[in-house]
C-alpha cells in the first residue's frame, strides 16, 4: 500500500463519542476534542486497525476505503 493512499477517516455523523478509539490506540494517534476523536498523530499509526474494529459505530476506516482489509 502506498503512503499517499493512506488515511484515517472518522465518520463524524456516525461517531457517538464513546472515546474508545482515543483510549486504546496503541500509538495515541487520536486526541479528544469535546469528546470527539481527532487524528492528531497520523504518522505514528501502524495500521493495526484496532481502532477500526473496536469502534462500536463503524465510524473509523484506516488505510483508505478500498484498502484490502485482510
Amino acid at each position, binding site marked *: 500500500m502506498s503512503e499517499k493512499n493512506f488515511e484515517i477517516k472518522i465518520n463524524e455523523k456516525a461517531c457517538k463519542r464513546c472515546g474508545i478509539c482515543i483510549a486504546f490506540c496503541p500509538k495515541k494517534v487520536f486526541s479528544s476534542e469535546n469528546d470527539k476523536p481527532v487524528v492528531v498523530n497520523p504518522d505514528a499509526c501502524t495500521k493495526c486497525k484496532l481502532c477500526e474494529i473496536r469502534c*462500536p459505530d463503524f465510524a473509523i476506516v484506516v488505510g483508505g476505503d478500498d484498502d484490502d482489509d485482510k
Partner: protein
Amino acid sequence: MRKSLEKYYRIDKLPHIWCPGCGHGIITGAVVRAIDNLKLDKDKICIVSGIGCSSRAPGYLNFNTLHTTHGRALAFATGIKLARPDLKVIVLTGDGDCTAIGGNHFIHACRRNIDITTVVFNNSIYGMTSGQYSPMTPLGAYATTAPYGNIDRNFDLCKLAQASGATYVARGTVYHVPQLIKIIEKALQHKGFSVVETLSICPTYFGRKNKLGSPVKMMEMLRDNSITVKAAEKMPREEMVNKIVIGEFFEENAPEYTEEYMKIIQRAQGEE
C-alpha cells in the same frame, strides 16, 4: 464504514440504536468481518435473533434476517436450518435472550449439534428493558431488580454449552477484537453447533448501576481481567475470582443433526 463491508450492512438503517460505547456494535462488526474473511455466500446466510438490544443486530445486517420472539431465536433457527440445510444459519442473541427465557432452546440446540453458530452478546444485564439482572449478572452486582445486590449465581455459559453437547465453544470480549473475529471464523467453519460467548459492555445500565464509569473504563476492565484458557489452567483457584477466561474451550467432531436427518430420509425411502 469500510466500502468493502458496506454490502453486509443495511446502510440506510445506520446509525444504529445502540448507546454511545455500547459493545454490541463491536460484536456486530466482528461478525461481519468474520463472514467477509471467509467469503461466505451472502445470499445463503440467514441471521436470526430474539428480542433485546443485542437482538437488534440482524436489523442492521443485509442478509435474510429474522427478529423473532424473546428467547426463541434458536427454535426458529432450527426450523430454518432443518428445512434448508444449505443455508448458513447464525444466531445473534443476548445473555437474557439466550440464557434466561431462551435457556431451554439453547441447551437443546447444543444437544442436537445442529449446524448453527450462536454468538451471545453478554453484557451481564437486560439492556433493552433498562437494567434488570440476568442469569449472567455477577453475584453482588446491582441492577434495577437487584437493588440490594444480586444473590443469583450466574451461569458459566461455556461450561453449560459444552455440558449440553455443543461441539465448538469459545469466549471472547469486545476488547479483544482480533481474537474475537478469529473465533467467530472458526465457529462459522465448524460443522455442528458452535457457541461464541462474547463479553460486551452496557455502559448505560450495567455500567451506571455498578458505577463502572465510562465505556473506556469498562473496556479497561475487560482488558485487565481477561486471561487465556492456557493461563487459566495454570492459575491457582483463588486468583481466578473475577477473572474472565477467554479463548477456545472445546472443539469436537460429532454427527451433525441435519446430516443425520438426511440419512433418515434415505433409510425411509430405501425401505419402501
